[in-house]
C-alpha cells in the first residue's frame, strides 16, 4: 500500500523515525483547526508542559507531521508559517543568554500565550456546543394569531396636504402665488371630471360635460373647467357646422 508520494517517489511504509503514531496520521488534516490546534494535539499527546515546551522536541514532531501530511494534502500556508516560527524560536533559544539583560523575554512566551488562549477558546467552543440551543434542543411555541393582519397604510388628513403645499410654497418663495381657492379648486375637480368622461372615447358631446340639474353655479364652474382644459391644451372643442353639435375632443387622440 502506497502511503504517500514524496518527490514523485512512492513511500510504502510510514517513516519509522516518526514520533507520531500511525493512528495519528490517520486523522486527516481537516480534523485540525489549524497549526495551533495541531501543536496542542502534539503537546497533549506527548505530555509536554505547555509552560516549558521543549522546542526541539515539539519542532521535530511538528515538522515530521507536516512533512507526512504535505505528501497527502495541499497544506494551508498557516501550517508552513508556524513551522517557520517554531524553527525561529528554537534557534533563538540556542543563543546564549545575556545575563546583563534582565527583562529578556523567553522566545516561547508569545507562542505559549497564543496556545493558552486558543486552548481556552477551543474548550469554550465545546462548552457552547454542550449548551441547550433553540431549535436543536428545544422549540419555542408560536401559536397562530387567528386573525389576518392587514398591513397598515399611512393615514393622511387633509391638513397634511395643506401643510405639504404650504411648505412647497414657502420653499419655492413663489413670486406669483397660486391662488387656489375654493372656486379654483372646484374648477380643477371638474377638469378631472371631464377628462374622466373622455377616457376611452375619442370625443364627447359638449352637453355631456355638464351635469344638468346640479345648479347654475356648478354649470358655470364646469364651463370654466372646460375653458381651462382648452387653455392648457388638454382638450379641444370643435363644431363642424353652424348650430351643429359641439364636440369636446381629448387632445391625445390623433
Amino acid at each position, binding site marked *: 500500500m502506497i502511503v504517500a508520494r514524496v518527490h514523485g517517489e512512492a513511500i510504502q511504509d510510514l517513516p519509522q523515525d516518526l514520533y507520531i503514531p500511525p493512528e495519528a496520521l490517520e486523522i486527516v488534516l481537516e480534523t485540525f483547526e489549524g497549526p495551533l490546534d495541531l501543536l496542542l494535539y502534539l503537546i497533549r499527546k506527548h505530555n509536554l508542559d505547555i509552560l516549558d515546551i521543549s522546542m526541539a522536541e515539539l519542532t521535530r514532531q511538528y515538522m515530521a507531521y507536516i512533512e507526512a501530511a504535505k505528501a497527502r494534502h495541499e497544506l494551508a500556508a498557516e501550517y508552513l508559517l508556524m513551522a517557520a516560527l517554531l524553527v525561529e524560536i528554537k534557534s533563538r533559544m540556542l543563543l546564549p543568554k545575556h545575563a546583563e539583560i534582565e527583562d529578556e523575554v523567553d522566545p516561547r512566551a508569545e507562542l505559549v500565550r497564543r496556545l493558552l488562549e486558543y486552548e481556552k477558546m477551543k474548550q469554550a467552543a465545546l462548552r457552547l456546543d454542550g449548551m441547550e440551543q433553540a431549535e436543536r434542543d428545544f*422549540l*419555542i*411555541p*408560536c*401559536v*397562530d*394569531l*387567528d*386573525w389576518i*393582519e392587514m398591513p*397598515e*397604510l*399611512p*393615514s*393622511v*388628513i*387633509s*391638513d*397634511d*396636504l*395643506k*401643510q*405639504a*403645499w*404650504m*411648505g*412647497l*410654497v*414657502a*420653499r*419655492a*418663495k*413663489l*413670486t406669483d*402665488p*397660486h*391662488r*387656489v*381657492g*375654493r372656486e379654483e*379648486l*372646484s374648477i*380643477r*375637480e371638474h*377638469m*378631472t371630471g371631464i*377628462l*374622466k368622461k*373622455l*377616457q376611452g372615447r375619442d370625443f364627447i358631446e359638449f352637453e355631456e360635460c355638464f351635469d344638468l340639474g346640479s345648479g347654475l353655479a356648478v354649470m358655470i364652474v364646469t364651463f370654466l373647467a372646460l375653458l381651462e382644459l382648452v387653455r*392648457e*391644451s*388638454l382638450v379641444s372643442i370643435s363644431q363642424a357646422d353652424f348650430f351643429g353639435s359641439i364636440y369636446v375632443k*381629448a*387632445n*391625445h387622440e390623433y
Partner: protein
Amino acid sequence: MNIDQVVEAALLCSDEAIPVAELVRLFEGEIDRRGIEDIIARLCSKWEHSGLELVEVSSGWRFRTRPAMKQYLDRLNEKKAPRYSRAALETLAIIAYRQPVTRGDIEEIRGVSVSPQILKMFEARNWIESVGHRDVPGRPALYATTAKFLDDLNLKSLSQLPPLLESESILG
C-alpha cells in the same frame, strides 16, 4: 413524560396544523389513531377555559387564540403608525390641488424629480389615477385624485380640502 404533554407541546410548537396520522409518529406508532384522538379530546377539554383553543381544520389539529384575546394581544403588536415622506405628501398635495397634472408639472413645482415609486404607491392605494395624457412630446400621463382618495380623507369633494388663500401671508 406524559403522552398528553408530548402532543400538546408538538401542537403548540408547530406553525401548521398537524393531522392525526402525523401525530402518531410522535410515539413511533406505539399509540394508534384512536389513542391520539383520545389525547386530543383530553387536550380540548383541558384548554376549554383558556385563551387558546385546540381546533380541527382541514389539514389537521392546531391551537389558535380565541377571538376574545384579540383586543389584548393587539395592544402588544401596536406598530408605530406609518407616515408618508415629505416628498410623497407634497406630490399628493400637488395632485390634489393642481389636478390634472403630469409628473413634469409636479417636478416643476417641487423643483426636484419625482420618483415613479411615489406615483405607483398612490396609484396602488387607488388614491390617484391617470385621467388622460397631455398632448406634448412623450404624451405624459395626467394624474388626478380618485373618489377613494376623497372617501379615505373623509371629504365630500375636493372643494372641502383646506383653502390655500393664506399662502399670501406666508409669502409676505
